[in-house]
């Protein structure tokens, strides 16, 4: 192990780590916001709601994130209609494309996780709410979604960790994330320990995320053990 490399390239590792973390945090929050209504639509009995949600989820779960990123980044850039449009300032930026790809991808997985949570909400609670005369919307807002989110929380934490590791793929569309920096540093040093350092950083990030999710889980689910 050559620890000099760590001091020499430390700031680049740091820059990359910040970008990776930023992409994961932003895409997981945006993904969750998209996933909430989508999970409701997916759980609906009306065709006009569940079919679009189902198709979206099926597409994004059925194709690799790498291909989704390539289509968004290299694919869209081929059309003049897009390069001339008002969207281009956003779509011409690699980080934005990475964020869009990761968000759309994680939204599909999160919607499916939330659907599981929605289905696991005890029927008795829903019946009780209905007996109180709650409207559909109030029922979702007060009973179903809060309950579903609490039930699905551990599985959602898992998805965010997978998202962190999936984020390494944005290095292929010229984003200077942790993996991008790592590959460029490796290409000039040919020192395999560079990848070991990157693995340790990813591990620490995963550890940090796990702790955060555990703390939140303890807090939101404490009513389950409080009596």
């Amino acid at each position: 192990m050559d620890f000099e490399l760590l001091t020499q390239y430390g700031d680049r590792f740091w820059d990359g780590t910040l970008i990776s973390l930023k992409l994961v945090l932003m895409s997981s929050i945006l993904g969750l916001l998209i996933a909430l209504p989508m999970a409701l639509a997916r759980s609906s009995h009306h065709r006009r709601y569940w079919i679009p949600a189902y198709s979206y989820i099926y597409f994004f779960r059925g194709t690799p994130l790498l291909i989704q990123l390539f289509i968004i980044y290299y694919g869209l850039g081929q059309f003049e209609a897009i390069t001339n449009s008002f969207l281009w300032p956003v779509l011409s930026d690699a980080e934005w494309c990475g964020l869009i790809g990761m968000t759309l991808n994680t939204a599909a997985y999160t919607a499916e996780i939330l659907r599981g949570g929605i289905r696991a909400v005890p029927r008795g609670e829903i019946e009780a709410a209905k007996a109180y005369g709650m409207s559909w919307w109030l029922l979702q807002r007060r009973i179903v979604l809060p309950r579903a989110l609490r039930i699905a929380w551990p599985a959602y934490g898992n998805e965010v960790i997978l998202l962190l590791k999936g984020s390494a793929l944005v290095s292929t569309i010229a984003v200077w994330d942790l993996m991008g920096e790592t590959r460029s540093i490796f290409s000039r040093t040919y020192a395999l320990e560079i990848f070991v350092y990157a693995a340790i950083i990813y591990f620490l990030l995963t550890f940090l995320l796990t702790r955060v999710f555990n703390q939140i889980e303890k807090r939101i689910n404490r009513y389950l053990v409080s009596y």
Partner: protein
Amino acid sequence: MKLKLFMAVLLGCFLLLGTAHAQKIRIATEGAYPPFNMKNTKGELVGFDVDIARALCDQMKADCEIVAQDWDGIIPGLLAKKYDAIIASMSITAERMKKVDFTDRYYSNYLRFIAKKGSGLEVTKSGLKGKKLGAQRATISAQHLEDNFRKTANVKVYDTQEAAFLDLKAGRLDAVLADAYPGYDWLKKPENGGYDHVGDTIDINDKIGIAIRKGDKALKADFNKALKALRDNGTYGRINANYFPFSIY
């Protein structure tokens, strides 16, 4: 008895493998760097590097196998003995010299920016301030950009040269820094008529050599002898002329 037979067969296999290895020189190239090494429509490796490799093998009367290997892993593959030499337009750099050994040069490389015609880009630190500049990852161009423009400009690196050019055409980049000859080759294509070199060639004393494992002294000497012979007997000049109307040695 059975075990003995098994061991004998196993030993025989190892011996066979061992001898096959000794006679054959395995050469790696990238296959994604036109016109030096690329795959034709049939999937065969062709290009200047491949022609030079074949000519060297003929000169050395050696049995050669040329394999394709991704650029990122091309030096680790050599160290892991997946092949014995790299003829893939690899620059001789101090950083690489720490890991591998190089023969004498077989051509010299320069860097040059490419941008849209009439862009009026000024190739200086201040002229390129805040501009989006691209290059292929793990190349001299990328390192030149990272070392000189990372703080002042927006530097982006791509997995392939083609992806960098694609982003130049999509308008995501103001300029691409590339090796002069592949850039010349790219500009020659009719669909890239709207682009041109900007600024002078950047001479970074970039010599292209054949990479071999450290300590492979005999192979290095053979390659150097054969290279000199190709230069002297005109073979090198003929191969050069097939690709460029000027000498790249």
